[in-house]
């Protein structure tokens, strides 16, 4: 039953990810990426990680993608601005080599995954992946990484403001 949900979900996610790579217009890429993030949130719900699924929608599909959209519209990027897209096609052998290398790596990886025995899936309690469970873990065992993450976000905020502001001489 869950497989019936998983396969269409995985297919849509992969197609949208390909859409991000192969769209010539950056705004279309961004919209595909939003769709992909929402698909991944659904995958997380399927894995019973409800807290992370909500976080995925709020942080990725919400905050980060709004930032992307904002910058694309601020810089007024249009389709066809990506001139190297055409330049790259002239370098046909390099493109083919890249594709073949990535496909070979992927083949080897799937081969390895399918031949590995992972053992029985653990029996999950009903509380798995809830905010209580994750939050308890986050504020007991992982409280130091949590604080470091807050410092990282503060530093990123200050850095972004300093980098993007006009020079005041």
């Amino acid at each position, binding site marked *: 039953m869950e497989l019936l949900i998983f396969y269409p979900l995985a297919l849509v996610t992969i197609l949208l990810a390909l859409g991000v790579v192969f769209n010539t217009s950056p705004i279309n890429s961004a919209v595909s990426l939003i769709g992909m993030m929402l698909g991944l949130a659904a995958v997380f719900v399927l*894995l019973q*990680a409800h807290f992370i699924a909500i976080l995925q929608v709020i942080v990725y599909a919400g905050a980060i993608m709004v930032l992307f959209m904002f910058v694309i519209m601020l810089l007024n990027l249009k389709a066809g601005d990506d001139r190297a897209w055409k330049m790259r096609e002239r370098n046909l052998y390099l493109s083919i080599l890249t594709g073949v290398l*990535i496909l070979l790596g992927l083949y080897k990886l799937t081969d390895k995954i399918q031949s590995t025995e992972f053992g029985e899936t653990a029996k999950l309690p009903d509380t798995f992946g809830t905010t209580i469970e994750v939050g308890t873990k986050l504020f007991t065992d992982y409280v130091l990484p949590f604080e470091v993450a807050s410092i990282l976000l503060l530093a990123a905020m200050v850095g972004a403001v300093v980098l993007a502001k006009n020079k005041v001489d």
Partner: protein
Amino acid sequence: MVPLSHYLILSAVLFSIGALGVLIRRNAIVVFMCVEIMLNAVNISLIAFDNHLNQHDGQIFSFMVMCVAAAEVSVGLAIVIALFRNRPTVNLDEFNLMKW
């Protein structure tokens, strides 16, 4: 019940697509988006193993990945804006001032 290997293969495929995008695209913003795809692909693996082993550590890890992604995107897009002010393009091949 979806087997763990299915999630891992989905993760591997998405990671490869992201890597392909980083290698073949030259629009700085699209390259950032492809990096996001790769980070998300790793999150699937972490959470799939979490589900498999009945632990919560992988969810904490993916939480940290999201924090780092948010920081990376805010600083990265600020750099793109600063570069764009210098020279009106987002083509990565033309940003070669630090290369000698």
